[in-house]
């Protein structure tokens, strides 16, 4: 029962993130990527609590969550820089306007 709730919410977050990635606004797409990453973080934290030994939460699960937040931050930084540059060139944040490259 417990596992269903926690893993269910992680999978739901994953699905919401994937849905966001299919949207038109570039910033919303980037938020969708972050949500998928956070669903992974969420699952890790739940599993770390599950694998607790002698009353202490498993530090391995916690440490990878910290590192993934850091790398996620780097990806968002690169993504935002790209969005700023795309806005300079195309004067919009609509991703469907990015269609110069085809086939």
């Amino acid at each position, binding site marked *: 029962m417990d596992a269903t709730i926690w893993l269910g919410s992680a999978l739901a977050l994953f699905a919401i993130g994937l849905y966001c990635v299919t949207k038109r606004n570039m910033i919303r797409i980037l938020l969708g990527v972050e949500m998928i990453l956070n669903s992974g973080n969420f699952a890790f934290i739940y599993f770390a609590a599950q694998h607790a030994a002698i009353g202490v939460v498993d530090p391995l699960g916690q440490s990878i969550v910290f590192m993934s937040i850091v790398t996620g931050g780097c990806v968002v930084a690169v*993504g935002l820089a790209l969005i700023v540059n795309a806005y300079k060139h195309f004067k919009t944040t609509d991703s469907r306007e990015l269609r110069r*490259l085809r086939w």
Partner: protein
Amino acid sequence: MVIPASMYFLFSPMLVVLTGLLAERTGQPKLRDVVAVLVSALGVVFAWTLYNALQAAPDNILVFSLGGGPPLGASFEIDLMGMFMAFSATILGFFATVYSYNYMEHDTRLTEYYTLLSALVVGMLGVAFAGDFFTLFIFWELMGIASYALVSFRKNLPGPIEAGFKYMIMGSVGSTVLFFGIALVYGITGTLNFAQVSTVIHGQPMNLWYYLIFALFVIGFGVKSAIVPMHTWLPDAHPEAPSPISAMLSGVLIETGLYALTRVLFILFEPSFFKLTIAVFAALTMTLGNMMALRQDDVKRMLAYSSIAQIGYMLIGVSTGLTYGLMGTLLHILNHSLMKGLAFLSIGSVVYATGTRDINKLQGVGKMMPFTTLAVIVSFLGLGGVPGTNGFISKFILFNAALGAGMLILAILGVLNSALSMVYYLRVIMVLLSGEAEEGMTAKEAPILMVGVTLVMAVLIIVLGLYPSPAVGIASRASEALIDNISKYIGVILS
């Protein structure tokens, strides 16, 4: 175990960025370029030292742990298969950096460029040497972030920004999906170390979670290695990046994805579990790659589609599940890194001199740039698999392995695709060699360093084609390593 001093090479991007900032401040920008070239040469030395250390080690496996023993600490596991990737990455990284010295000299922000290039190589080395999912994920992201920034490096043009954005979104969705898969593996096993995961998972009955993990890993790694339904970023990103970066992406980055996929699949599952799925992906990838390459007029875009097709050939070896097939895959990774690297670098020289990427406008270039054209011809013949070049050897082994594994259809498809691919390679060669140049078309031979790099790589392709036995020998031992080494690695970790 003591960490050898050569492993500090993984910090080399710091060296490049510090000297770069210092050189800019003191007004000696050439110093930074020289340091970048030296650091990339150091990478080859690093791979060679590590190879020698590996030869001396018992069981041909080296294991280092950082921050405590295996369940908690991050670990590097270095074996012959990882060394194979490391050699491909560092050698092509060296050639690309030397080539950039002339190719990029009119660009600004070169400190960032060389730092990111160095970080890209280090990221690939880390993925090749990773001993647990933690290390794998961190270096995977390092490699990814460096390549997103490098693809969109020329930010004053709209093309690179568009391609970079597509690549960034697809690549980061891929790595987050991969991260979710790693979370599920952790949930099942309670550890991230490859050896411990393997001991827990092998022999368990398959349930729904394993199928989910398999799907997440194939999508996560498949995006970076451009397996067909996930390939759409590649034909945009590779042509728009600067040519040395195209060579790095096409020559080693997508293969690093394939390498990580192979390694993880063999750790988690039995070959019989994933054989058929991977075979279907292989057939789709090579057929679609070649079909799309046929209809391109942009020469770099054509090469990008041809990279997708070559990934399909490499997947044949994985899908056989035999050591012989894996040997073909590894050999093709090394050969492809030389051939596709050379193809992008030499075509880069042509683009540098003529300023156009349209195949139809390249008539008569052969007379104006004889040495570069020679390099183009060697690399294209190699990619097509003409006997006498190294591409022939690895393709022969791959198709032979498919026959040996009883996959007749896959072998026939491979041979047909190989023949089909000659059409577009020969088209470019024909255009370069024939006809007169258009009015007002002038092209000089590229600068000496660029020509030198391409000719050295062309010679390497011919040498490895005529005298393949050392490379084949190492590849065969490396492919055995993949299958046996899990048990050896388990022995080292658990002892």
